[in-house]
């Protein structure tokens, strides 16, 4: 199938195209330089053309997400989705069913999504759900920050950590490596409370050692995405020092910080929270090897779900409501607490303000990209509103007036922070930037050879409406959304990394498995073709 998108204003920042009127040509699932006159034409005059959106950090599949679904029947009851001739039925809310997750991402113009926290032991479950999540290409990050088998290696045989990480990625179909509260979850699961500093002891290692060992392994393996870190002390007043300490610890290696907003708090632990967004924005700006996604909170309903189980146990005491905790042997924890962010709450308004500060003070949109840590800070469905907050100063100032005044005064948002994101910058923080940070060379741009994932918007003054209802979404060269309606259903690809390991590490790991796991080593790697195919591999590129 060939397509020519004509007459639109094209925003393709990776290729230096900034609102130029030009055609975009698609053939056989790829962007090409030209197509012949028989190609189907899409008239995009008066419209804005961008690459398909790329969500660098969301929670959409796996046991944690599914437990959250089971926890929210009232949300689902209020948001049913009918079966049609081409679509499966389902339910929405902050944690939609799998089919609805895929459909709604597509309706929003997103075509690639990262599931940011997969327990390796649950890879088969995550893959099964991703197979039932249509429309989008997906990839997942493996939780490796509280893995006691890996801790053993760090202590006894550190040279093998790199091979073990590569083996784990290969065994599961994973794309990258995630650290969540390194060491803290293991310590908490063992009944010893959370860690508070990078130098606390956890089973003979420290969070700092875990950070160093895994960041080094990822760096040496040359994985396309650097180590993806959810720092220790999430949500705690004063945690910005831990965040800075983390960044200094991984110095010399690339690193991506997840949901930076949740780690940008001043004040004393247990005391009043302050904003340290300016300091962290400054540090990030000055260190080109670092990147982050914001983890903006949006007022309204959310579902917090995290491998950082001690945080959920704390939140449980705040809400007094539903709470799920689930410990996964060897590897990780999991906590879920439904949550509502309220404008009038000091803490919630400050969190909201800190997210906006990070965006507005960011010097380099390529390295500070958009996320709500869906559904932790809010659903991905709130991205259009967030975009409007960034692009429309008057709208933002209106919203600022409605939020807790004391909290907003603690931010720099009232200090003539009049920046408005341009369409080019939005294209960077929602597609070009995330794709580059993930090392997905075929995503996030419209140069020849890129995947034919394209979103076309009406150029509306109301940016929220514009980004909520794309006119066309094209996935792999097929029109899947037309005039805001899904017109085709298709399955996405799994994007996985290809990294090699010394096979000798398998014997070492086999012994660890017998000691630590209740599944057999030979049954652990995913081999089922129906879970792994179709997939595309992105090769690791070890430094020479």
């Amino acid at each position: 199938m060939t397509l020519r998108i004509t007459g639109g204003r094209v925003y393709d920042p990776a290729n230096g195209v900034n609102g130029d009127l030009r055609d975009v040509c698609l053939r056989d699932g790829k962007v090409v330089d030209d197509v012949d006159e028989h190609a189907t034409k899409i008239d995009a005059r008066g419209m804005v053309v961008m690459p398909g959106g790329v969500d660098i950090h969301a929670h959409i599949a796996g046991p944690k997400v599914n437990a959250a679904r089971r926890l929210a029947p009232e949300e689902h009851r209020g948001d049913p989705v009918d079966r049609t001739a081409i679509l499966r039925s389902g339910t929405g809310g902050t944690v939609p069913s799998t089919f609805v997750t895929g459909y709604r991402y597509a309706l929003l113009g997103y075509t690639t999504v990262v599931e940011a926290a997969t327990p390796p032991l649950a890879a088969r479950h995550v893959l099964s759900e991703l197979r039932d999540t249509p429309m989008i290409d997906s990839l997942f990050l493996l939780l490796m920050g509280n893995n006691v088998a890996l801790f053993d290696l760090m202590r006894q045989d550190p040279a093998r950590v790199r091979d073990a990480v590569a083996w784990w990625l290969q065994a599961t179909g994973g794309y990258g490596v995630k650290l969540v509260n390194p060491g803290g979850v293991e310590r908490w699961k063992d009944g010893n409370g959370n860690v508070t500093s990078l130098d606390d002891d956890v089973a003979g290692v420290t969070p700092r050692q875990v950070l160093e060992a895994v960041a080094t392994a990822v760096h040496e393996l040359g994985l396309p995405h650097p180590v993806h870190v959810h720092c220790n002390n999430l949500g705690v007043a004063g945690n910005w020092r831990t965040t800075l300490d983390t960044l200094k610890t991984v110095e010399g290696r690339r690193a991506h910080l997840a949901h930076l907003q949740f780690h940008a708090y001043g004040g004393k632990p247990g005391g009043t929270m302050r904003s340290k967004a300016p300091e962290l924005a400054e540090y990030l700006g000055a260190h080109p090897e670092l990147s982050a996604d914001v983890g903006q909170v949006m007022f309204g309903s959310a579902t917090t779900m995290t491998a950082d189980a001690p945080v959920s146990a704390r939140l449980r005491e705040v809400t007094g409501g539903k709470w799920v905790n689930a410990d996964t042997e060897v590897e990780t924890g999991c906590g879920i607490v439904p949550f509502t962010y309220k404008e009038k709450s000091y803490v919630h308004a400050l969190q909201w303000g800190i997210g906006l500060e990070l965006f507005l003070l960011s010097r380099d949109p390529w390295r500070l990209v958009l996320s709500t840590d869906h559904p932790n800070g809010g659903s991905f469905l709130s991205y259009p509103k967030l975009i409007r907050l960034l692009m429309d100063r008057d709208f933002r100032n209106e919203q600022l007036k409605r939020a807790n005044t004391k909290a907003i005064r603690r931010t720099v948002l009232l200090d003539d922070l009049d920046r408005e994101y341009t369409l080019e910058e939005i294209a960077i923080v929602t597609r070009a930037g995330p794709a580059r940070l993930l090392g997905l060379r075929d995503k996030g741009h419209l140069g020849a050879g890129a995947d034919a994932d394209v979103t076309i918007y009406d150029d509306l003054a109301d940016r929220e409406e514009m980004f909520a209802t794309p006119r066309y979404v094209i996935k792999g060269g097929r029109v899947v959304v037309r005039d805001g309606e899904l017109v085709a259903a298709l399955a996405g690809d799994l994007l996985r990394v290809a990294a090699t390991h010394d096979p000798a590490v398998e014997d070492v790991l086999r012994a660890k498995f017998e000691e630590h796991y209740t599944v057999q080593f030979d049954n652990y790697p995913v081999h089922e073709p129906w879970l792994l195919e179709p997939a595309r591999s992105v090769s690791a590129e070890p430094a020479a």
Partner: protein
Amino acid sequence: MPSRERATCAGCGLVCDDIEAVVGDDGALERLIRTCPLGDAWFADRVAPSAPLARLGGREAELEAALDEAASILARARAPLVYGLGRTTCETQRAAVALAEAIGATIDPAGPLLDGTSGLAFQARGASTATLGEVRDRAEVVVVWRADPLTTHPRLLERLRLPGGADRELVVVDTRRTATAEQADTFVELESDGEVEALWGLRALVQDENDDGSPLGALAAQLRGCRNGAILHHVRGNVEALALGALVRDLARATHVVSVTLRHEANAAGAEDVLAWQTGYPAAVSFATGHPRANPGELSAAAVLERGDADAALVVGSDPLDHLPPAAAARLRAIPVVTVDATDTATAGAARVAFTTAAPGVHRPGVVHRLDGVPVPLRAPLASERPSDEEVLAAIAERVARAREAAA
């Protein structure tokens, strides 16, 4: 030379994946290594099924004719019911949910009925749980609450390395001295019908930090005092489930205690997982209005059958005539039933159309979610020329779709 093939036993919720099947040169199973008596029986029931691949009205039939009849029954039904799912793979469960959606059925896994808890307590308050390895390696106190795993999950204690010597305590709480109780360090006897009261009493004892000298008082002190504990249970009903959840939640303020439901079927957890990810709800889901709607009180299989609402049923990997309440079972006998299973059952024997397929875990691979939710691969140590249950469901779905198209 006989060969040794890796196998996974799906005979109960433990899903032991360290089994070996010794297979002779003729492809026949010679013996199994590391299975328990339950596992031996599970394999024996499936290795060479006694029932033919397809039956119509109890008589052997051509596969095509049986598929046509099954599709015709389900396509014609005004209010079909899809039931079971716990004894097959997640792949087959996905196919079953898709078919249920296509025919506007109500779908309900057997697990809630067999395991005594409908998930309402989870929806209301959540839960704190863990995988088996966490229990094995960390729990200093393991409480078995009203369950007899030595009978229902014979290898559970072995796999958890229990009884575990001086630094680990196995406590059995039940209304009678079970086989498991004989292995325990401590047995606490409950009055019959006093379970919920006992749980509330335990809560009070935990909150007050008050050891009143009673056996429950001692248990409360043990749980409060341990660094890590686990309660493995088979509760009966939502009130007991809520009370247990509340106890675990209270304990979480003082220490790290989790609870694990000892689910009976190998893939009871998977059935609810698949249904939840495809619809948002784990059980008792109706597609009658074109989108999923759930309500355990109204839409559970037992409720639907007892009201006389279902006018046809598709039973997958389950034997409901063996476990449904009598009124529901009576209704099931009165309506046309299609069964898809890897073994012969009472329900299949009474069904209008019965398929006895190749067996997941014996002849076909697949994935099941163990009682603690861990996905475990089933293997296929033996060959079978029969289609799988997933293939039979796909063939029925294809016929239903064709019938719909023709009618449209």
